[in-house]
């Protein structure tokens, strides 16, 4: 055997961290760590109580000390005694009185702002801490940390460089879809949560969230050429755009595919660091990376600022393209997977914690490999072999599904919330209007609409759905196909993959002669999609997500929240969203005939049982309302940031030094130079 390969193995660098043994615990890293830390407080109280005390007195906001004045309270024993005395003193005060009424006395005893906004809340927080010290449990540790600014998370940088990140005319453009929706919804929810949480600590601080993306001077009809853009429905959050610069430091004016942006990311991170410092008037408290490029930049910024880094992959390309590691050299010209996979393992290992939408994203199912799991070992022949690229058993993975924006996506039968003019407008656009941006006219608009909406990418497989509809007489007899994707004018598309799909769509419409049975609309503005779903539900239609693979599927929960019976691929995230036959259907999307079979069976059931559509519709709404909401997402994400902060302070900070140095080598020797070279052979497509 030839053993002269470069082997990459991160595993030896994880010896500082406890390891999860039971695969059933993967995806709930924080609970594992809470148990580990609380049992340490119990079994090694001297060491861990001291750590806890030191951590509590570390925090400041804009130079103002929070929680404990370390000059007045110098050690854990004094701290514990003072806590008991303070609790006793507070007992005799009006519990509803504000913090200001006890501020002077608390300060005198060494307590600073942050314990609560009222006497009652301050007392509860102190009691929780005393309970934690005397009888530590994971629940008490999480509960205490969630109540105090330890640290204060009020400034968050969310990194998403690629695509067209904007709120106007951006969705549906290449590389621009679910991730943008996810982030904008996330920002709104996080800001709302932080305002409430910070107020409860007694602090008067306005949280600020900045989405860092790329400024595209040739912005077309979008706002992507503007440096700053306020995020709708927020008070203090905005999109900050920083341009890419090439090796000559000239600003890159055109859009660049996500597969070819690697040469620009390091300079982008350096420029962005300066801009973020100025925006936040200091460093952020948390950095959240998104997708491979955003996570790489997040790692560079997190290193620079020394703050907690959260990684969100959205989708890892490795499992999307079969054997893309093995055949990397053939695909390098178009996809540059060698850079992307190196960047992925770099940021997975650098980040403090990783959020996924589903458990499958991490470890797959009984039968199939998870997206993160596929990075455990792989090889890029003649470049390197990965012996261990990601430690799935390290407690950094946490499953937190996103939610739906309840203002936009609510059930179709909540008539009072719907705007009539908008409803009528979408009724006409989806079913009747003759317009130069819409293709097709329906001979029988009264038939059940089969609706889909996605980017016009190969992986989204809209052409697979057209083919399924084309090959099924039963479906054509009972239903119309209505889809919103890309554009009907091929000359308007600058993306080669999209152009291929557009051509394929026209060919299929012709070959199956689908005229009169199909309508094709351009991508729908995000703010209108809720009403589009509801109008389809008014017609007792269905939503079909025919993607070949879906990491999560925001459109799936949006359609379900609107009351549409939804069909989704049985590969990936939808398996954890839909309960088959109860709140929707899962189907094998790998072949059009299998999609057709699945839809035919539902159409037939609806004929036999008039209640079939209503039952699935009601269950879909219930499922989303109960399990996918942004409120609990925000609470959990902020708790994670604080708890991993304590974890970094108490244990991982020192342990991660060696891992960080190994990551540096990987960055400098396998990524940086290769990325710079990419620019020289063209990254303009």
């Amino acid at each position, binding site marked *: 055997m*030839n053993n002269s390969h470069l082997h990459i193995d991160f595993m030896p660098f994880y010896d500082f961290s406890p390891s999860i043994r039971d*695969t059933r615990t993967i995806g709930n890293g924080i609970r594992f760590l809470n148990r580990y830390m609380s049992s340490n407080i119990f079994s090694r109280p001297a060491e861990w109580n001291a750590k806890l005390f030191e951590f509590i007195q570390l925090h400041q906001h804009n130079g103002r000390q929070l929680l404990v004045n370390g000059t007045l309270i110098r050690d854990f024993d004094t701290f514990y005694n003072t806590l008991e005395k303070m609790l006793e003193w507070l007992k005799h005060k009006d519990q509803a009185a504000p913090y200001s009424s006890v501020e002077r006395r608390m300060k005198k005893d060494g307590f600073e702002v942050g314990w609560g906004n009222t006497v009652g809340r301050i007392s509860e927080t102190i009691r929780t801490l005393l309970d934690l010290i005397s009888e530590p449990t994971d629940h008490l540790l999480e509960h205490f940390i969630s109540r105090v600014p330890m640290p204060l998370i009020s400034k968050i940088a969310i990194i998403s460089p690629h695509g067209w990140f904007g709120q106007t005319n951006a969705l549906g453009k290449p590389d621009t879809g679910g991730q943008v929706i996810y982030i904008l919804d996330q920002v709104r929810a996080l800001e709302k949560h932080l305002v409430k949480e910070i107020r409860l600590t007694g602090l008067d601080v306005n949280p600020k969230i900045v989405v860092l993306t790329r400024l595209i001077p040739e912005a077309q009809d979008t706002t992507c050429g503007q440096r700053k853009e306020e995020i709708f429905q927020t008070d203090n959050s905005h999109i900050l755009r920083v341009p890419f610069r090439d090796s000559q430091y000239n600003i890159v004016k055109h859009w660049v595919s996500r597969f070819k942006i690697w040469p620009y990311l390091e300079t982008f991170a350096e420029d962005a660091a300066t801009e973020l410092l100025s925006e936040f008037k200091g460093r952020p408290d948390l950095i959240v990376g998104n997708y491979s490029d955003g996570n790489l930049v997040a790692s560079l910024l997190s290193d620079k600022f020394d703050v907690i880094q959260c990684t969100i992959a959205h989708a890892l390309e490795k499992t999307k393209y*079969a054997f893309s590691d093995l055949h990397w050299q053939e695909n390098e010209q178009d996809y540059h997977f060698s850079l992307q996979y190196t960047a992925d393992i770099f940021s997975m290992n650098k980040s403090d914690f990783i959020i996924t939408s589903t458990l499958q994203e991490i470890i797959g199912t009984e039968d199939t490999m998870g997206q993160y799991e596929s990075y455990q*070992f792989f090889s890029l022949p003649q470049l390197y072999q990965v012996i261990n690229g990601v430690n799935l058993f390290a407690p950094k993975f946490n499953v937190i599904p996103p939610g739906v924006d309840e203002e936009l996506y609510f059930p179709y039968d909540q008539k009072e919330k719907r705007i009539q003019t908008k409803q009528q407008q979408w009724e006409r656009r989806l079913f009747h209007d003759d317009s130069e941006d819409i293709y097709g006219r329906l001979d029988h608009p009264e038939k059940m609409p089969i609706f889909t909406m996605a980017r016009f990418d190969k992986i989204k497989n809209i052409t697979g759905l057209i083919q399924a509809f084309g090959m099924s007489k039963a479906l054509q007899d009972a239903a119309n196909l209505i889809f919103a994707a890309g554009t009907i004018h091929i000359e308007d598309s600058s993306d080669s993959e999209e152009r291929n799909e557009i051509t394929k769509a026209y060919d299929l419409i012709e070959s199956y002669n689908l005229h009169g049975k199909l309508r094709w609309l351009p991508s729908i503005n995000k703010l209108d999609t809720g009403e589009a779903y509801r109008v389809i539900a008014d017609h007792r239609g269905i939503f079909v997500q025919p993607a070949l693979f879906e990491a999560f599927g925001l459109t799936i929960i949006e359609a379900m929240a609107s009351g549409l019976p939804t069909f989704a691929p049985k590969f990936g995230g939808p398996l954890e969203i839909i309960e088959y036959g109860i709140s929707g259907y899962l189907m094998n999307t790998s072949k059009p005939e299998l999609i057709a079979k699945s839809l035919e069976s539902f159409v037939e059931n609806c004929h036999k049982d008039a209640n079939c559509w209503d039952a699935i519709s009601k269950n879909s709404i219930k499922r989303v309302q109960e399990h996918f909401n942004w409120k609990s997402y925000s609470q959990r994400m902020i708790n994670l940031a604080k708890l991993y902060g304590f974890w970094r302070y108490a244990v991982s900070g020192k342990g991660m030094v060696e891992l960080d140095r190994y990551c540096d080598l990987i960055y400098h020797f396998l990524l940086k130079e290769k990325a710079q070279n990419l620019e020289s052979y063209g990254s303009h497509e």
Partner: protein
Amino acid sequence: MKNVLNAILNKKDRRDFREFVVFVTNQKFGICLRNGIIQLFRAYCDQYKKGLKFRQESSMFNFLKKAQELFLARETLVMLHRYAIAKYRYYRIRLDGEYMEEISLTDYLDLRDSYVMKKK
């Protein structure tokens, strides 16, 4: 290295496994993922007229359904076997199907690389 077939397959299935390996080797397949491996197994069952019980309950099927990757390299069949979530074993199978040994991850990655390099 030792032959692990006895530990994995029952005696009855070992003969079938030999046939399966020869069948697979003659298929001129490339590199297969799990679905492809299951399809090869079904094609083998069809050709050798195997009953439902064998297709669904045999020790051979229970072993093969957890195989994630299969390819020919250096005159052997190489298999990636995911015996539990996120846990793997790597096997090299002689083309007469008589002998299967467990190999190390690095050997497996080397064989995988050689599969691609051979095609260039």
